[in-house]
């Protein structure tokens, strides 16, 4: 279907235009029905692929529908290959208007997260054709990576990564806290209980295993024998709640901060638009695209606009008073 789109205009002089159009459709930069169609088609194919891989792992189903699964896999690989080739070909358009060379956009795509995913989830199929002896399980694992193709159309994954990145200091300190307490507590329990329960705590690494289970589940499957050991177990369990609370708190703050950051970004854009006093139609669509990109609700946008207008009125009132 993507191929049909590109062969629509056939004159070679308009190759540039076809490329541009393919890029727009693939990237979904200008939201229209073609790019939406491509998006939905690829997303559905990915979902069907993942369901197929899961079902294929059940021996009875695999034996009954072997040929169908193989045909479906062939079809998916063909579509994904066309997608990859089209993307590499058309992404040369990305920076060409900003003075970049054709290979800037291509290089960026091929080495981006999605580029690598697109490549890795498709190419092993061809490798298998060339070297038939490859381990099938490895191949299946690569095929499962197709699910990451979906995250291109959903910002949840990116949001999470961005939120974690923005709060990386807090995360690292929580991890550091976990690390320190793991070392101290597991060594302490080894020293205190190691003599009494040598089969459970024969060494510090074994005690670390106990600590991690206690932190994750709240109960490490071991009852302490000594009084000091009981105290230590109780402390570890309380620590497990505290660490869970800290991690949750960090994530919650990260998300709130991200919402604020988006509002700030949008507010800046609105201010930019309003700075010359008029809002052109182009600027209006620009704001709309930005709102969709940042995933902001209409109420939030309304509130920001309202605030701007109030500020303007105050400024004018002050001017008149002068």
């Amino acid at each position, binding site marked *: 279907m993507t191929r049909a789109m590109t062969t629509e205009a056939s004159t070679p002089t308009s190759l540039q235009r076809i490329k541009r159009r393919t890029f727009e459709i693939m990237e979904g930069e200008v939201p229209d029905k073609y790019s939406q169609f491509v998006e939905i088609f690829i997303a559905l194919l990915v979902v069907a692929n993942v369901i197929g891989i899961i079902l294929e792992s059940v021996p009875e189903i695999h034996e009954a529908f072997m040929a169908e699964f193989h045909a479906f896999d062939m079809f998916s690989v063909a579509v994904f290959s066309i997608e990859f080739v089209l993307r590499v070909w058309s992404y040369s358009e990305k920076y060409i208007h900003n003075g970049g060379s054709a290979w800037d956009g291509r290089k960026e795509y091929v080495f981006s997260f999605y580029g690598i995913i697109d490549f890795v989830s498709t190419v092993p199929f061809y490798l298998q054709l060339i070297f038939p002896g490859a381990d099938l399980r490895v191949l299946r694992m690569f095929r499962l990576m197709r699910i990451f193709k979906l995250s291109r159309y959903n910002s949840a994954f990116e949001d999470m990564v961005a939120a974690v990145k923005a709060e990386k200091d807090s995360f690292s300190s929580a991890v550091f*806290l976990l690390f320190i307490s793991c070392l101290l507590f597991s060594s302490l329990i080894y020293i205190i209980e190691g003599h009494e329960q040598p089969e459970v705590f024969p060494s*510090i*690494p074994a005690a670390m295993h106990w600590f991690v289970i206690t932190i994750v589940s709240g109960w490490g499957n071991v009852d302490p024998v000594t009084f000091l050991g009981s105290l230590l177990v109780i402390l570890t*369990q309380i620590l497990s709640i505290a660490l869970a609370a800290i991690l949750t708190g960090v994530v919650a*703050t990260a998300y709130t901060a991200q919402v604020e950051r988006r509002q700030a970004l949008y507010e*800046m854009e609105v201010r930019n638009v309003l700075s010359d006093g008029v809002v052109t139609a182009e600027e209006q669509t620009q704001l709309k695209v930005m709102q969709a990109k940042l995933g902001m609700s209409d109420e939030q946008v309304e509130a920001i606009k309202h605030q701007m207008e109030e500020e303007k009125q105050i400024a004018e009132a002050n001017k008149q008073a002068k």
Partner: protein
Amino acid sequence: MTTGIKNTLMEILDGSPKHTASRYVEWIITFVVLVNCSAVILDSVPEIHAEFKDFFHELEFWSVMFFTVEYIARVWSLGAKYSRDNGGSWKGRFEYMFSPFGLVDFFATMPHYLHMFFPTLDLRILRVLRLLRILKLSKYNTALQDLFHAIHSERQAFGSAVFLLTIATIVSASLMHFAEGHHQPEFFGTIPHSIYWSIVTITSGYGNVEPLTKAGEAIALITGFLGVCMAAIMTGIVASAFSNQVARKKAAFEAQLREVFKDGNMSDEEKETLQRLQAHYRLSDEQVEAMMLRAKNKSSAQE
């Protein structure tokens, strides 16, 4: 001459960004500490201990030497922290020696010498003290200090949560003692015994002992449910502590911004101060830009 060296050494050991050497010192100390902790952990595995005993011994000796030099350098150089009129050289030294970091540095190093003089000392205590070296790393983790600061500012809420936890533990433990004490005396025979059970149940939702009576079952269910509530309360407190801290930082930064825009223009010096503050408060560039625009608009509106 010595004062100059002292001053430079103090700044390097303190991790001041003025010297590139301070970063290398930080890396070296971190590396030695990590190697040390790995050695203590590996040394506890009997097979590894049998094979590499001499190597671990050697490593311990050289690390102690390293940490001793570090400790002495810190104590000596911190004499330069306060001038003579301001308390003299020993004020800075004592301040360091009795600070948490100073105590950690001391106890992570000195017991080795004790062992040299009193070879009969319990080795296990020595091993615990060796592991204290990991705490040396917390000096370099400012976010950790942030975290403690956030928790410290919400200490009242934490206090009430701990109070709730204590009450819940004691009540459920005593109830369990009365309900199950006769049936399972080995687990619920005394209230301290059942306290252990009720803490396990509250924190993990899974008791190490199954109750036998109907009343015991009901109490176990309620205790497990209380555990979920406790986790929710703690999480809520920590989350609000974090967001309060962020809000506080932003407010402080905004106040500084308003101060800067009061005279209408921003000098280079003021810009530098703002950048330093931004790094200190860990605000993103977008947040700062939005705040700046708002402050600018406000100051122009007032004119």
